[in-house]
């Protein structure tokens, strides 16, 4: 990738992220975050959630794959941040994902001196943003 070919507003790509209950179990195990709101419907409802919700960090971690695949090097992501604004309820369904999240990436800023690009991610569930100000700073060789 050549820095000079990048432009603010350019779309880097889009992808659809299907999330199933087993994805949350795997993320719980891999991350060590066993909060029952991510695997126990009864507990989730007791704390006034609609049911089991995805870990915000699962959504954040999966969404950035669009960026790493675009730049071709995961270590090029030198900063990454987001706000979590809406939960992602994951239904317990057979034969398909319990939630479908859409991820779109656009170049939001370029820093020629640092040779970095800021990629702004729009991450939505049923048209509503679940991550806000999701921004990854990427070093472009």
């Amino acid at each position, binding site marked *: 990738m050549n820095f000079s070919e990048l432009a603010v507003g350019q779309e880097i790509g889009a992808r659809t992220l299907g999330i199933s209950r087993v994805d949350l179990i795997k993320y719980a195990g891999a*991350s060590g975050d066993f909060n029952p709101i991510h695997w126990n419907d009864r507990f989730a409802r007791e704390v006034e959630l609609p049911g089991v919700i995805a870990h915000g960090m699962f959504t954040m971690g999966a969404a950035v794959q669009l960026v*790493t695949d675009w730049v071709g090097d*995961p270590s090029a992501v030198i900063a990454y941040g987001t*706000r979590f604004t809406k939960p992602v309820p994951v239904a317990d369904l057979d034969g398909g994902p319990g939630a479908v999240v859409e991820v779109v990436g656009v170049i939001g800023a370029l820093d020629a001196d640092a040779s970095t690009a800021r990629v702004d991610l729009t991450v939505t569930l049923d048209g509503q943003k679940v991550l806000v100000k999701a921004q990854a700073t990427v070093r472009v060789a």
Partner: protein
Amino acid sequence: MSINPALQGRSYPQGDAYSVGRESIREFATAVKATHATHFDVAAAQAAGHADLLAPPTFAIIVAQRADAQLINDPDSGIDFSRVVHAEQKFTHHRPIVAGDELVAELHVDTVRAMGSGAMITTRAEISTVAGEAVATTVSAILVRGEGQ
């Protein structure tokens, strides 16, 4: 119980080191649906200039949340874990995390802001190797929901 406002400015010392293992990187990468070869194949990671398997961009959350647990589990904090919602997260990488790293985190409670009967708490984990090399800075905002929030 309400959140202790005196938490602001408090810090918690480095706990036990977290050893970054190859299988932990592979499992975490699989869990976040990462497919890049540098997370799975040692030869591919080394060909890309890394000493060993490369961790995905959000892997440091494992170390950061272990550090946060010191605060959340501190009986003096007044935090009910079942009412904690993750509100914001930022990572700044000073250098990539690779298998074989021995990481420690020093936790700083930067701000505590009352919100009704709950509070928004911002913590910062300064993650380094046991030898003192800076690796990552993570900033987390957690919302502790008060009654009826």
